Structure formats: structure tokens, C-alpha cells
């Protein structure tokens, strides 16, 4: 069985596992945690496309997450719009704001971009926190409805929301897979490696960066909107810098610039956090140094570590196979020579 088939088998297995999980585990609490993890994963995928594949570390994505969440909350609670229309609109609103911010912020690079986006994120948080009349300020926004029925499908229960979010997650992963393994994906990676080189092979760096930025805010907004309708209550703290640091931790631990990284990192950190419940606010005592150590020793996270290890094993296998082949060839020649001598 080739490595590609193996990979497909693992992926299919995981999807099936995610599909039947609610039947194996009847515990509503774990279903809740898992659904939340899926929502975070969608946001982390958005961040990954930008920071991991294109090389632009955005620290504003908690802000875009919050924009998505508040758009949905306000559209459904205050404007009374149908849930699905509000969901689409929330993503559109986040993307449009993302487009405008990207247009300006992407003119900056490296440190400036990180600082700029950190400040943008903070401004978004402050606006949500202070704009009492619209957002409810520190009191937050309550009574956000669950997704409304589609024909016979109802999304009131935790179980149905689990499947809904899983659906969006799988769609996100599918889109990411297609993008990363495409000419566009290669273009983004070229920009990450060297913007100067990318320019000289004819790539319009600004246009491509903007596309990535908007797309990544789209996914942050989608995650935010799903979060709002799942938790039913949102406060300004979902836009605070701690959220972007959480997302970054998920991404880094799993593997920045890898396709499986967001899933691996989020699952791992969330489940470890669950078993370290007693730590609560002190979890960063462990995750902070972890983040630093990983970036020093395994910059491509767990997934990067394993794929390097796997590749190394493959190549040594290949080499030893080659050696064996060469050896057997030599043996053949020896035999031949012997025969010649004998003859």
C-alpha cells in the first residue's frame, strides 16, 4: 500500500470516527467540547493559510472572529433576520472589513505587520467593549438563536449542532486541501519563501496576499458566527488578545504551514486543557513555554516533526533497498565472471 492510499485511509477513518463519535460517547459535555474545538479549528485554518502558507503573522484574527460573532448576534437578535441569511451576511461583513484592513495592513511587512494587526485587533476589541448602545458593551449579547430549521432538520440539540459544525469543518478542510495543493497554494508558498523572488517570477504579491487575507478573515468570521449560535451568548472578551494567542498555540503545536496541524494542535491542546482543569487560568504556565520551545526546536510542530521523521525513514529504507539491489547486481556479475573463468 502506497503512502497516499495510507493517508486516504487514515483521513477516511477519522471522518467516520467523527461521524459516529456521538454514538460511542453519549456524554453531552464531551460533545460540547468537541463542537467548540471544531469551531476553533475553522478559525485556525484561516490563520494557517495566512501565517503558515503565506508568511504573514496576523494578530488581528481574534478581532475578525469577534466581528463574525457579533455580526451574527446583532443580525439575529436586533435585526431579527433569518439565521442562515445572517450567517452568510456575517461572513460577508467580516470579509469586507478584512478586505479594507488587508488593503492597508499588507503594505507593511514582518514586524510592522504583526504590530499593526495586533493594534487593529485591539481597536476591534475596544470598539466592541465601548460601543454600548450597539454591542451591549461588557454585558455582552444574549439570546442568540440556534440555527433555524431547514425543512425537517432542526438544530436545537447539541447533537445536531455537532453535525452542523462538523460539516462546516470538513468543508473548510476540503477547501484548504484544494487550495494548498493547487497553483494558487504554490503561489502563496512562493511569497512566504521570498517576496522578492516571487515578484521576479511574475507573481503579483499584493493581489495574492490580499486574496489570502480576505479568505482567512472569512474563515475567522465563519468560526465566530458558528460560535455565537452555539454558545448563544457573546461578550467582548472573545475579541481579546488572549483568543488570538490561544489560536496561535493550537496552530503552532499542531504545525504551522501543515494541513493537519490545526486539527492535531486544537484537539491536543483542548483535551490536555480538559484534563488540566485544575490549572484553569494558569494553563499558560505550560502552554506559554511549550509555544516557545516548539518554535525553537520543532518550528513545524507535531505534524512537521512526524512528516520529517516519516520521510527520513522512507529515504533510509529506499537507500538500503538500493544498496541491496546494487549488492545483488554485483553478486550477479561475480557469478558471471566466475562462469567466464570456468568457461
Amino acid at each position, binding site marked *: 500500500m502506497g503512502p497516499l492510499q495510507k493517508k486516504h485511509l487514515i483521513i477516511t477513518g477519522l471522518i467516520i470516527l467523527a461521524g459516529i463519535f456521538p454514538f460511542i460517547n453519549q456524554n453531552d459535555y464531551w460533545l460540547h467540547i468537541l463542537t467548540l474545538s471544531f469551531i476553533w479549528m475553522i478559525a485556525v485554518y484561516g490563520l494557517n493559510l495566512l501565517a503558515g502558507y503565506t508568511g504573514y503573522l496576523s494578530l488581528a484574527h481574534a478581532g475578525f472572529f469577534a466581528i463574525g460573532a457579533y455580526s451574527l448576534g446583532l443580525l439575529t437578535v436586533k435585526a431579527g433576520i433569518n439565521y442562515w441569511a445572517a450567517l452568510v451576511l456575517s461572513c460577508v461583513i467580516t470579509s469586507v472589513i478584512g478586505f479594507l484592513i488587508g488593503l492597508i495592513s499588507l503594505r507593511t511587512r514582518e514586524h510592522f505587520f504583526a504590530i499593526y494587526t495586533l493594534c487593529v485587533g*485591539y481597536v476591534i476589541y475596544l470598539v466592541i467593549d465601548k460601543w454600548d448602545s450597539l454591542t451591549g458593551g461588557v454585558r455582552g449579547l444574549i439570546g442568540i438563536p440556534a440555527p433555524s430549521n431547514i425543512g425537517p432538520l432542526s438544530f436545537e440539540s447539541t447533537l445536531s449542532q455537532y453535525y452542523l459544525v462538523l460539516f462546516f469543518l470538513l468543508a473548510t478542510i476540503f477547501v484548504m486541501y484544494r487550495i494548498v495543493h493547487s497553483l494558487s497554494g504554490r503561489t502563496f508558498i512562493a511569497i512566504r519563501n521570498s517576496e522578492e523572488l516571487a515578484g521576479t517570477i511574475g507573481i503579483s504579491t499584493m493581489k495574492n496576499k490580499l486574496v489570502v487575507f480576505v479568505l482567512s478573515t472569512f474563515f475567522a468570521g465563519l468560526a465566530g458566527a458558528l460560535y455565537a449560535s452555539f454558545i448563544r451568548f457573546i461578550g467582548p472578551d472573545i475579541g481579546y488578545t488572549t483568543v488570538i494567542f490561544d489560536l496561535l498555540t493550537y496552530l503552532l503545536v499542531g504545525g504551522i504551514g501543515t494541513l493537519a496541524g490545526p486539527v492535531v494542535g486544537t484537539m491536543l491542546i483542548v483535551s490536555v486543557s480538559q484534563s488540566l482543569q485544575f490549572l484553569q487560568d494558569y494553563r499558560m504556565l505550560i502552554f506559554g513555554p511549550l*509555544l516557545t520551545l516548539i518554535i525553537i526546536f520543532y518550528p513545524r510542530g507535531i505534524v512537521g516533526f512526524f512528516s520529517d521523521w516519516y520521510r527520513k525513514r522512507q529515504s533510509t529504507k529506499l537507500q538500503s533497498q538500493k544498496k541491496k539491489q546494487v549488492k545483488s547486481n554485483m553478486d550477479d556479475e561475480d557469478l558471471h565472471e566466475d562462469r567466464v573463468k570456468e568457461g
Partner: protein
Amino acid sequence: MEILTQQLFNGLTIGSVYSLVALGLTLVYGILHIPNFAHGALYMLGAYVTLTSMLLWDFNYWLAISISIIVVGLLGVLMERLVFNPLKNAPPIHDKIAAIGILLFLEAFAQLMWGADYRSMSTPYGEVVNIFGTTVTMQRVLINVGAVIVMITLYLFLKKTIVGSTIIAMAQNRKGAHLVGINTNKVAMLTFLISGALAAIAASLSAPINLVFPGMGHLVILKAFVIIILGGMGSIPGAIVGGYILGFSESLGATYISNDYKDIIAFVLLIIILSFKPQGLFSKEGV
């Protein structure tokens, strides 16, 4: 009129604190090209160490500040050795993430050690004095005078001593400095030491008029970044002038525009600057 002078004095005081924090940040940036996101955590720890020394061991204010300077300075050196030095040749995204990791750790650490509560720091300089017709507390005067003394000392150190001039040399050209035999590792450590010490001084001086809590560094560090972009990344005079500009605009903005949104002023300023000058004001790059 009295409100105006009061607000100007407030601006001066806030500006002094900002300048000290921004100085530490700009020194590290100038020499190592690291935007040290963990600098705010050093600031926060500076306040806690001073507070603890005063409460726990009953040290007087100045002794407590000295201890804080040493502790936080050494912490800076440790950060350089353990984290930033190994990442010297890594892609630019890495040192930023590493700094964020340190920041998260130090904040959680502070919360574990001292709790999440807001605390206040007492000061022996609580009395009220009258200057130019405005009444101010002695502590606020102390912040301004202290900041100026620190800035002058730093200036003399950088300009008049050999060690100081190596820092300047390295800030201008790291490779060149290495070629003429400057021990770049030592300079890097020294810079982090100074940067930590400045953060400790700023925090210890301002803590009595503010509150001490684990997240106290968040806003300060963000604003310090705005300041050094305003004043030119790596520029020492820029950090000082930028600090005071922001201090004044905030205190005047709080009075005449809106107290709620005064914290936004800095960021709006930054967004405007970077929108027009993506490399920051006073960028050296010719292209």
C-alpha cells in the same frame, strides 16, 4: 485654565512612563531586530517585584526598586540567552511567536504568584505639593524627575562610555560590529539587561498612581510599539519624543474628546501612520 495645566502635567507624567518603556523596546529592536512582545510582561513583573519586596520584607521604596531592577534585568538577559539567541537565524515569524510564548508564561506566573486581583502600591511620597498653581502629588513629580534622570544617565552611558558606544555601533551595523571585534553576544545580553531595568523603573515609579495586576502590561506595551513606530524603530530620541507626544495626546484627548476612547488614540494614530508610511516614520530604507 487650571484643567489645562492639570492635564498637561498628567500628560507629562504618562509620557514619562511611556518613554521609559519605549526606550527599552527600541533598544532591543535597534540591536537585535526583535519586536519583543514580552516587554510588557517585564514591565508588569517590575511592579510586582517592587510591591512584594515592600510588603513581604518591609523594604523601603528605593531598595525595593533596586531589587526589581536587578531581578527584571536578569530576567531579560535570561530571555535573550534561552530564547532569542537560539532563534537568531530563524525566519522572522519565529521570534515573535517565541516572545508571545514568554509573555503568556510570565502573565500566568504572575497570576499564580500574586493572584488576579488589582493591588495598589503605597508610596512614601503621597503628600500634595503645589507647582505653578496646580496641586499634584509628590509621586507624580517623582515620576517626571526620575524619568529625566534615567534618560540622561542612559544617554551619558551610551555616548560617553566604551561599552555604551559598542551598543550604538551594533545598532548601526551588526555584521560590521562583529567584524571589528565587538562581542555581539555580550552586547545583546547587556541590551536586554538595560531594557529590563528600564521596564522595572517605569513600572515601579508609576505603580503607586496606577494599579498592579497581571494584565497591566498589555496596553502599555501596545502603546510602546506605537511610540517606537512613531519615533522610528530603534531610535532613542524618537522613543522619548514619541512617548511624550502620546502622553499629551492621551491626557488632552481624555478631557476634550472622550475618556472612554482615550486608549484608542494611540492605535488610530498608528493605523494612520502605517497607512501612509508602511515602513514607519523615519524609515531608513531607501526603497
